[in-house]
């Protein structure tokens, strides 16, 4: 188990380093001089050159990479070109919107999908199964930003229950802030819940065909107990895998959803930074998201052992 853990950690770290090289290299070839962009078109070449030196843009490529990567490790991301504040402050501020949003969406998706999957699997082939899987099939096909627009139309424009967009900040109190995250979270969660429900159902059906389920039933355990205690636990591995993958989808999904709802989150920050050529912000946020994806996948891998004791001794 320890060697397995170490091997997984080493692979995760190597992936992270490679990813950082890719991100750095890609942004190197981006057209546009950040110094020129900051000073505007009227600045003289000398002024631009001076700023380039100050920003360290004239240093050799490898040095600049090492400097940047070293900074990432110590959470020193540098200063934003356009906002003129440390990137870490920007990120912290935006994360306070995006992280709760992604977590609420993930929780919503799980809370909807697992019971639906259980319901469907236990009524395989019957009307309830057909209807809920039909709904899931439809849910997979809905683009989350269109669903978001429809939610805005019904709940904000029509019923006026929640704001159509914007974010009052956590300072305005927890409830108003949560209220403005509600629609975005639902919009993000529903298509993911549809996928998760389908996976849960097929994993459960696979498990329900196993001999030990028949044994559990034969010894007189009620169906409900067999479903929850024996079947669901054994079906967890594919479900966890998809949950891990969905985290990446949710993070990326926030880019579009935050634009729909005008939320000052990480996704909107990176989108604006790309269009404004604020490379240092783009680099930092992309690396942060990639690190999050790698970390979550690592956690998912390790959680297999927690769910399935058979895997603990192995490897």
């Amino acid at each position, binding site marked *: 188990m320890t060697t397995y853990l170490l091997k997984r950690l080493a*692979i995760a770290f*190597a*992936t*992270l380093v*490679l*990813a950082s090289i*890719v991100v750095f290299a*890609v942004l190197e*070839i*981006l*057209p546009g001089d950040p110094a020129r962009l900051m000073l505007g078109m009227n600045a003289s070449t000398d002024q631009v050159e001076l700023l380039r030196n100050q920003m360290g843009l004239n240093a050799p490529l490898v040095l600049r990479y090492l400097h940047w990567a070293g900074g990432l490790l110590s959470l020193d991301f540098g200063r934003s070109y356009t906002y003129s504040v440390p990137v870490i402050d920007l990120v912290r501020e935006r994360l306070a919107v995006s992280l709760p949003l992604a977590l609420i969406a993930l929780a919503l998706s799980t809370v909807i999908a697992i019971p639906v999957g259980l319901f469907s699997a236990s009524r395989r082939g019957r009307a309830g199964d057909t209807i809920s899987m039909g709904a899931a*099939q*439809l849910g*997979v*096909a*809905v*683009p989350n*930003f*269109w669903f978001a*627009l*429809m939610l*805005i*139309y019904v709940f904000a*424009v029509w019923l006026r229950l929640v704001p159509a967009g914007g974010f009052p900040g956590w300072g305005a109190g927890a409830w108003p802030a949560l209220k403005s995250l509600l629609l975005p979270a639902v919009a993000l969660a529903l298509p993911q819940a549809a996928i998760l429900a389908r996976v849960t159902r*097929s994993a459960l*059906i*696979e498990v329900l*065909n196993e001999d030990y389920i028949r044994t559990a039933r034969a010894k007189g355990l009620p169906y409900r107990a067999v479903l929850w205690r024996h079947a669901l636990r054994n079906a967890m591995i594919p479900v966890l895998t998809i949950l891990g993958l969905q985290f*990446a*989808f949710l*993070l*990326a*999904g926030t*880019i*579009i959803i935050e*634009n*729909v709802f005008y939320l000052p989150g990480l996704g909107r920050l*990176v*989108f604006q930074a*790309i*269009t404004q050529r604020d490379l240092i912000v*783009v680099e930092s946020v*992309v690396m942060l*998201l*990639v690190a999050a*994806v*790698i970390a979550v*996948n690592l956690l998912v891998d390790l959680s297999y052992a927690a769910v399935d004791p058979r895997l603990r001794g192995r490897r």
Partner: protein
Amino acid sequence: MTLHLEIPEETFAAILAKAFRNTAFVTGFVITLLILAMALASYVWTPYDVTKLVISDKTQGPTLAHWFGTDHFGRDILSMIMVGARNSIAVALVAVGIGMGVGVPLGAFAAARGGLVDEALMRINDLVFAFPALLSAIMITAIFGPGAINAIIAIGIFNIPVFARVARAGALAIWPREFILAARAAGKGKTQITIEHVLPNIATLLLVQGTIQFALGILAEAGLSYLGLGAQPPMPSWGRMLFDAQTRMTVAPWMAIFPGMAIVITVLGLNLLGDGIADILDPKSRRQR
């Protein structure tokens, strides 16, 4: 040359008969065909000219003259959806082509060679998977400038590891089979075996994955053009139509409803088609459903 298909005892007619009894396949097939027909028809005929702005007709609700209403420039929404279908289908289809064209040879090669080559290719695969696809697509289109071609490249790149993984997994299951051993005994090389025996046997798998990626491509293209990174105006695209609709939700909700429904129906059709094909050709998956 003999092909070793997974289901040698079934004739083509038998598969076809099974296909027509499969509700998912028939529904998906019909929807996909209709969307394709709509896109093709738009080349010769649309109810209205989508390049002509008729300001006097702007933001009209659905009427007999304009079934799906008009947009803020007085353009007919139905006509724009028809023309937009071309763009969505072309982007998603070419992106699948890129993914298959590069990913399948890579995956098949990794499976055939094994060892270090396999390990290295799969690690690169993991690396690409670590980047949230949409985020990278946004970066790519931002670097090379927005437009349909760059959207294709951005979506296509992220199809590559998907097909590589599917092709590798499929090929790895085929290699230990007896007919491969026979082919090797007959003196065939790894490349020849891959082309003649492995690829025909994983074709179904790739076809199913292809329809799934096609559907995902339509969704991704809509997302990119919603952000203004896909096809540029005046070329209508479904995502762009939704962007234009957003600020006019209170006065013209139909501008958002109909293009969104076009996306949902197209993706639904493709997913049903994929599910149907998997059902018909793979007896194992039928047991699970």
